[in-house]
């Protein structure tokens, strides 16, 4: 298992735990405090330290770089779509309710949501590429 695959699994685990935490918290409170578990996403900052390249070992080659490039494209497209769809949904809900103003706090949440989608979709794509059957790239 190379470092890209390890960090992809780490990202998926951290994001899923953070989102589940939000879901659990939202059962207890309807305030912004429900988003507190998103702070766990800060653990993603440790990725470069936790998954360092081992000296002398060939870890990433041209095939791995191809996978990473494709994953970054997929992640970018997914996050952009999430951002656009999220924005349209917010607008739709406000239009349906007949509200002419929108809470400004929704904007950073929308951007943050897009970032989560970027990391999650990128990581899921990397894992799928190394699963053995997809696109002729095995683990």
């Amino acid at each position, binding site marked *: 298992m190379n470092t890209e695959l390890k960090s992809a699994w780490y990202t998926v685990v951290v994001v899923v735990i953070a989102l589940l935490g939000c879901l659990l918290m939202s059962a207890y409170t309807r305030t912004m405090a429900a988003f507190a578990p998103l702070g766990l996403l800060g653990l993603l900052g440790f990725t470069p330290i936790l998954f360092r390249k081992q000296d002398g070992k*060939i870890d990433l*080659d041209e*095939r791995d770089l191809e996978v990473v490039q494709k994953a970054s494209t997929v992640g970018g497209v997914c996050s952009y779509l999430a951002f656009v769809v999220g924005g349209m949904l917010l607008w739709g809900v406000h239009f349906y309710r007949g509200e002419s103003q929108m809470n400004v706090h929704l904007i950073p949440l929308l951007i943050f949501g897009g970032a989560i989608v970027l990391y999650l979709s990128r990581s899921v794509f990397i894992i799928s590429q190394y699963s053995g059957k997809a696109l002729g790239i*095995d*683990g």
Partner: protein
Amino acid sequence: MGDQVSNKVRELRFENERMTQQALAELTGVSRQTIISIESNRYTPSLLLAMKIAKAFDRAVEEVFSYCENGQ
């Protein structure tokens, strides 16, 4: 079926004193997984890597890799 590049990497490894995939990977500067993918025709290497592999076997590139039109 689309165009494909087939190869004789596996055969050549066995001809070369049963060279291991790991040994070939180290010679060419890629991971063993990449060699596995190339051998099973699931990954088409770059020209540079193809040349490195051919050099590892002391062969010409066209002796190791061949182009198959429409999967023939």
